[in-house]
């Protein structure tokens, strides 16, 4: 750290500083989600945690894969996989903007020497049934952060809302280090004091994945994978819906027979253990496969709308199931706090 006194932050120091800053503001520091996602928003740490009433603060790095953005490692500004630092503040504190500006100071940006603007930029993800109101934060003409007040997620209106801060780490690092190519960013200084660059670490990654994403990925198999993951996800959410649906009013004379046919969760425990989180991972798989197919040019504009709608339906169904599960868990905790704790210990 002493070497950074006169030098701008390295890529990993940038991450460390943000982690340290947000940890100091009561954030859970999470690890990146280990399923391919296009943005930090898609991590369950955001997508699912913003649902329901429970307050939550979290910060995490999220490598974000967008196959179509790949440039074979040849474009100095574009990557197939870029790195986001994502912060969720639920509910947002009144001084959320000031906190954000402090975080910039923490990564070595002296705002008195720069020009910062909050310019309208509302975020929307049709695939996730999510949208929010906010800004792109511009620093000397460079968009460094997307700042969003989430209003809806998975088709569910949020209350409380969450503030989502998404830092574009490569851009910020290139800005801090004043390099024109992402690949020249210093990731770390090695034991010999020589820089290890972003290119050293990631160049091959970009080249090979560009080849795979644009040329090699097997379109027929991708479709097959997409259909399989979709079916599995759908089966799970369908089962959850079936077991939680309001019982229909039985016809006269058939009361008993009908009631026995309805599949229900036996108890709260079986409901809380129902695999909604895996269903979400399956949904993320679908989303990534869609992006791959898109990069392969295998989805016509007409089909596009349809596939997006399919994935959106999954995301919305998962979000509903998750919100329902959380509600039941919360009710159960209130009803019998001791028992709930015991159960929690028991499962760990």
């Amino acid at each position, binding site marked *: 750290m002493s070497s950074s006194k006169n030098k701008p932050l390295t890529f990993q120091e940038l991450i460390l500083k943000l982690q340290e800053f947000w940890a100091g503001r009561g954030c859970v520091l999470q690890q990146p989600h280990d399923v391919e996602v296009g943005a930090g928003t898609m991590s369950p740490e955001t997508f699912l945690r913003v649902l329901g009433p429970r307050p939550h603060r979290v910060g995490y790095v999220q490598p974000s894969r967008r196959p179509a953005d790949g440039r074979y490692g040849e474009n100095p500004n574009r990557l197939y996989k870029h790195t986001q630092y994502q912060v969720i503040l639920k509910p947002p504190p009144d001084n959320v903007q000031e906190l954000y500006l402090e975080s910039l100071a923490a990564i070595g940006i002296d705002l008195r020497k720069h020009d910062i603007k*909050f310019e*309208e930029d509302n975020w929307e993800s049709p695939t996730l049934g999510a949208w929010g109101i906010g800004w792109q934060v511009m620093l*000397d003409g460079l968009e460094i952060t997307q700042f969003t007040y989430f209003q809806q997620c998975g088709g569910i209106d949020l209350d409380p809302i969450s503030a989502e801060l998404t830092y574009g780490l490569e851009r910020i690092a290139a800005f801090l280090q004043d390099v024109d190519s992402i690949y020249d960013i210093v990731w770390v200084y090695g034991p010999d004091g020589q820089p290890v660059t972003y290119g050293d670490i990631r160049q091959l990654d970009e080249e090979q994945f560009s080849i795979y994403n644009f040329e090699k990925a097997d379109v027929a198999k991708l479709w097959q994978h997409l259909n399989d993951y979709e079916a599995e996800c759908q089966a799970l959410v369908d089962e959850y819906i079936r077991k939680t649906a309001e019982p229909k009013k039985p016809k006269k004379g058939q009361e008993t027979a009908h009631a026995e046919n309805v599949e229900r969760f036996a108890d709260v425990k079986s409901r809380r253990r129902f695999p909604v989180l895996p269903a979400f991972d399956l949904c993320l798989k679908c989303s990534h496969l869609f992006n791959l197919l898109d990069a392969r040019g295998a989805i016509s504009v007409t089909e596009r709308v349809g596939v997006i709608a399919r994935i959106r339906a999954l995301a919305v169904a998962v979000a509903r199931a998750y919100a329902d599960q959380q509600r039941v868990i919360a009710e159960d905790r209130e009803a019998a706090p001791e028992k709930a704790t015991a159960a929690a210990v028991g499962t760990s």
Partner: protein
Amino acid sequence: MADFLLEIGTEEIPARMIAGASDELSRRVGELLSRERLVATIQVENFSTPRRIAVLARGVSLSQPDMEEQVMGPALKIAFKDGQPTPAAHAFAKKVNLDVDRLEQVNTPKGDYLAAKVTKQGRPAKDLLAEFLPKEITSIYWAKNMYWRGGKPERFVRPVRWIVAKLDGEVVPVEFGGIAAGDTSRGHRILSGNAVTIGRPDDYSRALASVSVVATPAEREHIIRKALDAATRTVPGARWREDKALLETVVHLTEFPSVILGSFEPEYLDLPEEVLVTVMRDHQKYFAVEDANGKLAPHFLAVLNTSGDPDGLIRHGNERVLRARFNDARFFWETDQKHSLKERVAWLKSVTFQKDLGSYHAKTLRTQKLASLIAEVLLQAEVKTRAGVIHKAALLAKTDLTTELVKEFTELQGIIGGLYTKAQAAQLDVSQDVADAIGETVYDQYKPESMDDDLPRSVEGAVLAIADKADTIAGMFAIGLQPTGSKDPFALRRAANGIVRIIAEHKLPLNLASLMSDALAEYKGSDAERNFTATFAGDVAAFFRERLEFYLRDVKGYAYDVVNAVLAADAGNIVDALARAEAVAKVRGSEDFAAISASFKRIKNILRQASEGGKLKEGGVASDSVESDEPAERALAVATLQSGERVRHFREAKQYDEALAEIATIRKPLDTFFDKVMVMVDDESVRDRRLALLVTLLESFSRIADFSEIVTERKSS
């Protein structure tokens, strides 16, 4: 008299919404003060920055004046029995706090009632403002707003963080969004410490200036203009490109503006100017700089929300960003050249125009045929076009939708196609001249994008632009996707406005009804046709009629009654309607036409009543009136037949001033006729003949305009 200040402090409001909301806030506060009788005349001043909208009202009374009010009591017959007050009268007297003998009696349509005059004490301004302002603040319109507090009690454009409300020296206890008003405002985020106390309302802008906030957009605009001038002066002979919309945006993005001049490598000037300017203006909000010859210079101007850039750090940062953007654009341009537009025509098969209307390839073929058809119609009216240019331009028009550059800069669709066409003369197998003409046609296809936008420059451009828009409108209407109310997701009104303007200002002899039926006919036999639902003809006619009214009224400035009168006569031919409107507008105020208008209204009434009474028959012959015993009837009949013939002649020759002069001559015989002759007489044959005369007159003299639509004002002498 006191001053009142209200400031709503928020997180950054979108630049595009600030001016409107600021106006609305001061209108609402002014109206509230006036409604509550706290001001004699509304005097308000607006302030706004990205983080606040504020209003200062002057001449505010500290309290409402007392008001004498009449309170109604029970009916008299209930209040008094045998001249003695009943308990009802006593109860009312108690309620209004008066003795029974001081109550009054009032006479109303419902009978006589007991009443009382009471003095309603005026309430303090402070209370009224605290009570009513929250509702006014909540009601401000935002194109998009949000919730931010738990339980979602209110919505606003962005979270409200502070409120200042002061009546002279005193805080008015307004509350909104969980924030209680105080006297503390906030300064510039970076340039000053946060808080500043607002002493008196009229200190507001001075207090904000002390914390590096310029409170009025007008003053910021002035500062920015001067700073743009000053920065540009450092480059000899250079000028910054005026850009009103951009200026307005940066005015609303800054609280304390300054300007820097940045530069980029001259090699980027090889890229088309349109691309460079779009990157600078739309993506970076920079002003472009041009040299003495009007050519783009390798510089830009950025408006900062801070006091300056002494170390050049901000300039350096902005230059880095722009270079990266230009690099991207150049990369896309080069990639796009690997496949010619001609090759890309087939690619359009997989680009959807609209899900029920098929691909852009299908649209291309329809538009191509429709454009050729329009060219033929024009040729018949001796307006010549280069058929080959239109044909090729229509074929290539949408191909740029498949290019990387348009995917990146969607606002450049059409323009990129035009530029690529010019660069691909060889692939198109045409001379550079022809390629340029085709390119220009493609380039202009989306014009005009607004009422202020330029029109397509050439007739070929006009034809393609009309064909493209007509095809879209026809298709969307046919599948029932016409605009409804404020919803117009496919911008069909804008498209129709475009057609109207192009036809009017290029003076094209095109008929709207046949244009649109031709456009619809191109869908015949297509897959799309199976999705057709709507009752097309009536819908489209009414829709274009509305657009034409809008054009004549709001763009050309004709009075609404002139527009109604002219379009009632004929709404199919735009150029003709425009010429008639011009002629009618000139005579509208004249005495002759005021009288004619009144008489025509009378004729219409007579004919309507006759028709309702079953007395209007087909059989009447107007020329029979020439033989009438009544001199006034004879005179009118002769005038009608002779003048009517001349009006028809002038109308056909499009000599509208002359036609109107001819129409004016009917006034005298018509006035005399109504003075002397009764139309609805008992003698059936006489009545039929006179009615027939009026029918003929109305027909002959309403060919330029339906004068009964003209509103006549009785001049008070």
